């Protein structure tokens, strides 16, 4: 179901949003979803699931698999490190993590593109900044959708096994 939702989010961004509001980039709900998984799910399961979602992403873009996997791994690792050092929870923490995660993803993508790709991407500073801002704005309402989705799909025991809860229990 989560994968289905992921596909819907990608379809929304590629085929729905550009036809309605072509002058503003659509929110990267797929990235917010990956950030949510990074923050909420157990790290081992999360990283493999994120790799799977990264593969799914290549169906909607010309992005090479090496680029998306390496960018997502970088984002996942840095976000996990930050998360383990900052004791915050709830919607407010999620939007802050989304802001940080979006910045890490965009910067990481540019850096990794310079290192890995033969034809590296350009900086496109304003485009990236706008994208980060849009992700940040949309992260707040989307958090509640993800939260509801996550809680209604997973059993409470599974939910309580997420790293955040584990720390709380300890």
């Amino acid at each position: 179901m989560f994968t289905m939702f992921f596909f819907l989010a990608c379809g929304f961004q590629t085929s729905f949003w550009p036809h309605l509001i072509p002058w503003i980039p659509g929110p990267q709900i797929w990235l917010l979803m990956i950030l949510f998984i990074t923050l909420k799910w157990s790290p081992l399961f999360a990283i493999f699931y994120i790799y799977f979602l990264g593969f799914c992403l290549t169906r909607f873009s010309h992005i090479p698999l090496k680029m998306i996997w390496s960018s997502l791994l970088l984002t996942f690792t840095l976000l996990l490190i930050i998360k383990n050092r900052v004791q915050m929870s709830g919607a407010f923490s999620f939007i802050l993590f989304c802001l940080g995660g979006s910045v890490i993803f965009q910067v990481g993508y540019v850096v990794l593109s310079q290192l890995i790709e033969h034809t590296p991407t350009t900086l496109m500073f304003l485009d990236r900044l706008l994208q980060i801002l849009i992700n940040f704005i949309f992260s707040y309402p989307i958090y509640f959708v993800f939260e509801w989705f996550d809680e209604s799909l997973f059993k409470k025991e599974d939910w309580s096994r997420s790293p955040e809860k584990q720390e709380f229990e300890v």
Partner: protein
Amino acid sequence: MNFLNFNFRKAIILILVISLPLISINMEQKKVQNTWFTEPFSFLAEGVQSLFASLSRGVRTTTSEYVNLIRIKSQNADLQKQNDELKTRLNQMTESQNELERLRTLLDFQKNTKMELVPAQVVGRDLVPDHNTITINKGTKHGLKIGQAVLTVSGAVGYIFKPQLYTSHVMLITDRYSVVDALIQKTRAHGIVEGKSKELCVLQYVERTEDVKPGDLIVTGGLDNIFPKGFPLGVVTNVERKTKSASLVIDLKPVVDANKVEEVFIVTHAALEDFLQKPTDVTATERITK
């Protein structure tokens, strides 16, 4: 003094009572009605009548206006609704008209070319802003293959790089992975067009000695076996002559704004079409250079 014991007062009243109707009967028979003593009464009556008449007219008008107001209010709501509907229909008509004109142009283009073309609609854009690709609603089921050219009436858009069963991904000429053989229309010098950013391409490997100026039209070279020869690609916006480089770096603005494209053609068979033999559509070029 009263011999007959007669009550004169009563008698006078009685006479008056009887005579007044008689007098009035007598007056009815006369032609002239307005006598001096009736005039004030008539005047008064007229005044009162006029007053009440105007009053009643006023009341009637106010009432009818009020009733009308209620009716007008509901009519206004109906008309507003009709107006909105008509506006929507007008917008739809305008949209249909535009679509009709666009499709007519496409049809004319399809009819007047030797190439075998498959029309398609753009259904999606790339998920990541770093890549410039579009998704079209035709795939291998419709005979599409990898490396087929995608174009519009105005110019080249890109080529198919990932055909699927019912959809295909098209790499736009502005994508940084895109490479297209190109010609400078004026001098016939060959070069390679590569994607640079969302709205720009760069023409490389053109000799320094070539005479290229902003506004020159760049067309497809045809050596890549993707695009037919001579189809418009872009217009030169900037020419950079680096001192240590043997070739020029030429910035191009694509003739087609791929972000606004809705319908495209896929060239399934170019049939050796050479657009350099045909008069070029200069309107797009002029539009860009302006």
